[in-house]
């Protein structure tokens, strides 16, 4: 069965620090990849997505992610985090343009002011 792994469950950073959150998936076929964010008390919203083309994708609020097919990875990055980035981040994968989106376990990010 397909799985999505987010290795960091909790991350604590100071403002202006750089961020990288890991995401690995277990399937070698065609995938569509997503990062979602959930701010405290809010619903999940899309940060960015990759379907094809340039493996470096840029999303909202200065986030970007790089699809590395050989490593089955889609890590999320931000050069300089802000306190307002405190949230839970979820990586998700769809196989072969199917319907079912499989989520990773999430990473809770806390940014200290």
């Amino acid at each position, binding site marked *: 069965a397909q799985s*999505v792994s*987010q290795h960091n*469950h909790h991350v604590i950073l100071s403002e202006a620090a750089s961020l990288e959150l890991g995401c690995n998936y277990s399937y070698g076929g065609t995938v*569509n990849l*997503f990062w*979602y964010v959930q701010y405290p008390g*809010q*619903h*999940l*919203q*899309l940060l960015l*997505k990759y*379907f094809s083309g340039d493996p470096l994708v840029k999303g909202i609020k200065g986030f970007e992610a790089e699809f590395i097919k050989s490593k089955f990875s889609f890590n999320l990055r931000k050069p300089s985090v802000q306190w307002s980035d405190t949230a839970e981040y*979820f990586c*998700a994968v*769809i196989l072969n*343009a199917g*319907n*079912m*989106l*499989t*989520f*990773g*376990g*999430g990473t809770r990010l806390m940014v200290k002011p």
Partner: protein
Amino acid sequence: DVKVTQSSRYLVKRTGEKVFLECVQDMDHENMFWYRQDPGLGLRLIYFSYDVKMKEKGDIPEGYSVSREKKERFSLILESASTNQTSMYLCASRQRDTGELFFGEGSRLTVL
């Protein structure tokens, strides 16, 4: 803007009670989903529906059923609630061309 509305933000039920969670979307999406969200486990798919009266089991369908009588509405039913069903339940609908899921604000269910 796409809007996905879940009928109840917070519910408290007793073991054995029947629970209905309702979800409505306003963008004419064909695909709708029910997930549960638990700390450290992320989101796990319970059921999804790809059209009216069509449904498919997700990863954890046991103890749940669903109903999709109208395109805009997707209901999750717990026939006999148990304490291990205490969780946050998230409904989503999917935009066909982009694949993006749009989520509701969630329904936090506590089963005593």
